[in-house]
């Protein structure tokens, strides 16, 4: 009997302490926001901004960071369960259609109205703000763009000058230059080009600019996949041909390996993201200081277009602190604050900052980045993009590793993508 009483008391004590701690949490949450971000330079800048924000306003922002491989699943699980654990989330733009179409995010326009604004100001780059609307470009606003990444074409200026090559404006130029450089520099172990064709995101990211320049389209107007069009097949044939000038093993490369080859001075050209630019001037990492030039993506039958890859910030619909979160979001994306983020290494999403003299002096690639971003293209805006990209990447990787011919790869990719699209309907 005594034991029973003790157990009951213990249980009671537990319940009381639990409810107490809940009360405390609720009280403190008014002065506190939670944010989930990517680890690495993009999230670190936001973390630094959060400290500045606390110093200015007294509002504490608790930041949790995850590496890219885990961030999507952490956010998705939280959004799906509608826990409201996060007041702000940092997301990669291809995830946006999934989150927005599932009604996971807070519409921002009403919150802007409350602040006396009609909508996002015109200083945001058009292609960046278009990503934050669902449907794309025309729909309601569910996020604001924070980091303005878009792909750039990197090439070794010194080698191009040495061998009298003109800057690569078309993919034919790229192929010719890769061939010349690899033949003439073979003694130094130089490869003409380096690309990444690991299945998934990597292969697709390096393929899309070629695919678009060759006139390929992933879907027709009715939403049917068309990757195996003659243009698409020609683009993949071209990619495989470029593979001859890429270091062995490239069908398993990711951005890291591409960056490493450029830094080590063992490859002459590549597509990559702007986050690598500052590393080329870091003597502890780079053997090619001052030798790399940045430009927009080469053209084919069509004008060259980069893939856009912006980091956005949104407010989950389940957040209990949407207005306070909006205050921070607007503050963090002002020109003044975004400039600080830019100085910490993140490309901005505002036109005025790409022209800012201080920033341009520090980041000479800004004019090229702005041109690339303005003409960039998003990955297809579908909630099923993760699944489609995965399948497409598998077949691109198979073609590059020689398991399938480009025609077979594109036909099979098309059939599998069609299955996914049909399942979603």
């Amino acid at each position, binding site marked *: 009997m005594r034991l029973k009483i003790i157990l009951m008391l213990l249980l009671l004590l537990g319940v009381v302490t639990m409810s107490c701690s809940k009360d405390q949490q609720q009280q403190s949450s008014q002065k506190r926001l939670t944010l989930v971000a990517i680890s690495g330079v993009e999230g670190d800048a936001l973390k630094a901004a959060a400290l500045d924000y606390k110093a200015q306003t007294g509002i504490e922002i608790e930041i949790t960071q995850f590496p890219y491989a885990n961030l999507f*699943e952490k956010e998705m699980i939280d959004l799906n369960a509608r826990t409201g654990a996060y007041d702000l989330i940092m997301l990669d733009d291809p995830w946006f259609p999934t989150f927005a179409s599932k009604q996971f995010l807070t519409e921002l326009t009403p919150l802007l109205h409350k602040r006396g604004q009609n909508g996002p100001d015109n200083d945001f780059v058009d292609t960046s703000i278009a990503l934050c609307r669902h449907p794309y470009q025309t729909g309601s606003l569910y996020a604001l763009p924070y980091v303005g990444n878009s792909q750039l074409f990197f090439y070794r200026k010194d080698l191009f000058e040495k061998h009298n090559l003109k800057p690569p404006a078309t993919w034919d130029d790229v192929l010719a230059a890769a061939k010349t450089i690899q033949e003439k520099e073979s003694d130094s172990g130089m490869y003409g080009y380096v690309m990444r064709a690991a299945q998934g995101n990597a292969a697709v990211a390096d393929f899309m600019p070629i695919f678009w320049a060759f006139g390929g389209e992933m879907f027709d107007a009715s939403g049917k996949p068309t990757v195996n069009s003659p243009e698409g097949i020609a683009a993949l044939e071209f990619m495989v041909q470029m593979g001859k000038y890429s270091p062995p*093993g490239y069908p398993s490369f990711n951005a890291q390996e591409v960056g490493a080859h450029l830094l080590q001075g063992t490859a002459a050209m590549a597509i990559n993201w702007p986050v690598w630019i500052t590393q080329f001037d870091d003597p502890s990492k780079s053997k090619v200081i001052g030798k790399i030039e940045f430009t927009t993506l080469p053209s084919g039958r069509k004008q060259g277009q980069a893939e856009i890859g912006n980091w956005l910030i949104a407010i989950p619909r389940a957040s209990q602190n949407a207005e306070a979160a909006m205050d921070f979001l607007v503050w963090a994306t002002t020109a003044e604050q975004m400039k600080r983020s830019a100085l910490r290494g993140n490309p901005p999403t505002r036109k005025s900052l790409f022209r800012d003299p201080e920033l341009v002096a520090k980041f000479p690639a800004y004019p090229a980045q702005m041109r690339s971003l303005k003409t960039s293209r998003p990955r297809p805006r579908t909630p099923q993009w993760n699944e489609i990209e995965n399948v497409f990447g598998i077949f691109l990787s198979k073609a590059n590793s020689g398991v399938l011919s480009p025609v077979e790869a594109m036909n099979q990719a098309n059939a599998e993508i069609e299955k996914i699209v049909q399942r979603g309907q």
Partner: protein
Amino acid sequence: MGRRVLLRSSWLPYLLIAPALAVLLALSIYPLIYSITVSLQVGEAWGFGNFTRLASDNFFLTAMAHTFVYAAAALTCEFLLGLGLALLLNGQIRGRGLFRATLLVPMMLPPVVAAVVWRLMLNPNFGAVNGTLKQIGIDTESLTWTASPGLAMLSVIAVDVWQWTPFVFLVLLAGLQAIPQEPYEAALIDGSNRWQTFRHVTLPLLKPAILIVLLLRTMDLLRVFDQIFILTEGGPGFATETISLYIYRTAFRFFDFGYAAAMSFVLLALTNVISVVYIRFLKHETRIS
């Protein structure tokens, strides 16, 4: 008085088991039942749609085939190597203690760490493996290991063999040491040669240890995830995608929990069948023939 003792002894065990049972219910049984219901839902509708979809999913079937190739090859190598090493180090050889300790090192490393190290060593351009081969004059141009569709599966198998042979060795060695001397003396008196002794004395008496180690390794191999995820992420193309990776992708990348749950149950069922077969096959009463 006697009744009170009886009463107490009848509820006390249940009370003591209750917390563990509650934890098990909350953390294992409930999720298990919940995942069954998830696997039977496609969107809002109930049915076997997720299970029928499996049959026409090329990726699922290929991933399953990869899983079995991987498990069979790795298990065979690990068992033969482990058994050989255990027999070798069971005898009286010089430096036995040192060998035994050294052999256990791979097993001590967390699989993730081992995989990262191997990924670096197998890098075709900067890696230690190709670097060493080049030094001794072997052409490494086509040896791209994890990046080549032909060698990638071999590479991930080799890494598993490297890491888990010590475990097989350890269990079998313990099994060998537990065998008493008498049967060997009897065999010696009967004039049996080394092979006969091994075949009719050692192997039958080692059966329980063999059963345990094969069972544990098979279950581990069928649900392999971390090493392959780090070494190849299932690539190049789809060359090393095993069922666990495909399940993970389906659940956490495509957020199709129903389909992922359905695949998990198929894997669970197959693992169970294999386990039962093992136990049937090896669990004849141990006797010296």
